[in-house]
């Protein structure tokens, strides 16, 4: 059983370390060998560099690294993010010289291995999703959403249909309406029913001839399976719209059902979520997009093609394509990791991923159901959503509980999302946590719930064991300071 006790390093910025004149590198005087640099390129004043020794530099970054929290440190229960363990075999694959040292401008003849990776990954995602073809180009999930919406837009305009609205459930991730807006369209909200899922009648009421389609996440952000999704798809298709599936929560259904079977026309995958490529520090992510048969010709370019001689290349020869969405071929090394992951697990392994992910989330749900309020009772999928309704009576908020979790040594779960739950606490353990790990997390939550009932005032000051307690987020938003300056 691991225990966290505070080791507080108040680590200033590197500029605030060191002393004038201190150097980490001895730069010899060039003397007569000094290169002739044109006058106009010479600095008038020295650059603002820290004056630190090599040892100070090493200590500074080592201390910062010890403040870091990641999946390699502990359970990271961020709902909707799928913070699963990143297998080292996938890192080994991405580090292979033929991939890692490959120049982006290397000709196809020298990149066959890389192109095979892309070809194989496309086929694997097709198999997993039931879509007809996949592009690996988008660099992140939201980028995939935008690319997918552009595909839909081009498909509609190709048949002379200029629609400008998209239906968005009230549980949707914010990237959905944002992608709609960036596409120049208008988001129209559809409310989920009392069971937390979409009702075909509500969709029918909103669906019209000027609606391009619907963006639907399954399971949704409440961790619930959209049980009426097939009927919803039919309602949308009946009026000429298309169905966009946000694949962020694919972890719950891998190997269990294919999104295409439920009427989804376009889906983005999050390789950094479902397929375990590293994220949590900003990625890089990768958001491949799969489309149904009629939409294949609109996919972005370049696309991986195999010539009659068996050689692979990247081709732009697709006149109906939406065009480029990314430089080069997308996040290639992320693709390597994802393919290694898929190959490492195989079809049976991927199905077990979904089973364990759902089992773990339901275990958390069952253990905490008596302590935290469950707005939607009944089985969940890969994540469980609680609210702070019970603790709220003693004046304790989700924020207070999340901050105290940090003192217990855990990264808090996703909080205050989805918006339709008051003080939402979204817990996604993922399948890579064993029972001991989850039990430790549950024990920490139980202790916090106990504290909320017996000594609530202490929670308002949490956390107390972290280097920084509660930062002034409002001030940071109003007056952000983006770079250190001397004298600050």
């Amino acid at each position: 059983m691991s225990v966290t006790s505070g080791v507080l390093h108040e680590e200033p910025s590197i500029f605030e370390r060191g002393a004038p004149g201190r150097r980490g590198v001895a730069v010899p005087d060039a003397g007569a060998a000094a290169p002739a640099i044109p006058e106009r390129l010479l600095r008038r004043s020295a650059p603002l560099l820290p004056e630190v020794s090599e040892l100070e530099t090493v200590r500074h970054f080592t201390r910062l690294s010890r403040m870091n929290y990641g999946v390699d440190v502990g359970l990271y229960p961020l709902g909707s993010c799928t913070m699963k363990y990143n297998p080292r075999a996938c890192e080994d694959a991405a580090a292979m010289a033929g991939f890692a040292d490959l120049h982006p401008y290397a000709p196809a003849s020298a990149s066959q291995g890389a192109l095979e990776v892309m070809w194989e990954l496309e086929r694997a995602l097709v198999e997993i999703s039931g879509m007809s073809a996949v592009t690996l180009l988008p660099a992140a999930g939201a980028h995939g959403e935008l690319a997918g919406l552009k595909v839909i837009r081009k498909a509609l305009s190709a048949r002379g249909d200029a629609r400008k609205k998209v239906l968005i459930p009230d549980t949707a991730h914010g990237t959905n309406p944002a992608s709609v807006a960036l596409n120049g369209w208008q988001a129209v909200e559809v409310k989920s029913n009392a069971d937390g899922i979409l009702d075909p009648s509500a969709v029918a009421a909103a669906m019209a001839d000027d609606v391009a389609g619907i963006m639907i996440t399954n399971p949704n952000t409440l961790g619930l399976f959209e049980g009426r999704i097939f009927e919803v798809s039919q309602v949308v298709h009946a009026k000429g719209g298309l169905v966009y599936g946000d694949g962020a929560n694919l972890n719950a259904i891998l190997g269990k059902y294919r999104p295409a079977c439920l009427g989804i026309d376009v889906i983005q995958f999050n390789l950094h979520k479902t397929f375990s490529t590293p994220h949590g520090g900003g990625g890089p992510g990768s958001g491949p997009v799969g489309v149904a048969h009629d939409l294949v010709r609109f996919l972005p370019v370049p696309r991986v093609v195999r010539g009659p001689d068996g050689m692979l290349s990247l081709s732009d020869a697709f006149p109906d394509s939406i065009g480029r969405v990314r430089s080069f071929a997308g996040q290639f090394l992320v693709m390597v990791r994802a393919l290694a992951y898929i190959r490492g697990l195989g079809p049976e392994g991927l199905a077990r991923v979904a089973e364990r992910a759902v089992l773990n989330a339901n275990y958390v749900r069952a253990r905490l159901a008596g302590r935290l309020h469950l707005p939607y009772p009944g089985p969940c999928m890969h994540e469980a959503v609680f609210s702070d309704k019970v603790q709220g009576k003693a004046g304790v908020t989700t924020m207070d509980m999340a901050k105290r979790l940090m003192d217990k040594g855990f990264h808090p779960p996703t909080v205050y999302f989805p918006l339709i739950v008051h003080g939402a606490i979204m817990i996604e353990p993922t399948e890579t946590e064993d029972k001991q790990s989850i039990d430790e997390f549950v024990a920490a939550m139980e202790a916090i719930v106990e504290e909320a009932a017996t000594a609530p005032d202490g929670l308002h000051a949490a956390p107390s064991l972290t280097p920084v307690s509660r930062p002034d987020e409002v001030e940071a938003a109003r007056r952000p300071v983006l770079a250190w300056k001397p004298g600050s």
Partner: protein
Amino acid sequence: MAVPKDYRYTDSHEWVRIEEDNLVTVGITDYAQEKLGDIVSVELPRLGDEVERGERIGMIDSQKASSEVFAPVSGVIAEVNELLNDDPAVINSDPHEEGWIVRIEVEEIEQIDDLMSADDYEELIGRLDEEDAD
């Protein structure tokens, strides 16, 4: 929860105060500012903009959410509260006076009659609070 008796209200939580003939001041209510939390920034309309009742005239960003401000009446934007550019928090501290957002020049002052009375608004927020507690 302050609900000034002489103001009128919308169901999107704007308040309206009649200044002199044809000029009204608009802001958001105490209920709204409390729900929004600490306000970080305010997007104001341009002077002289013609607005229709129900049209979006501004945006209020808080830590939690971005919230649209809707014109409660049709008219022309006559004044905007520049103070909000430097100190948006005044909407939190004084939503009904110092935290006013715009002044609109109205052609048909009778539009005010369509707005909610203070009593009706109080009833609305009472009902909303009950729903929240479920």
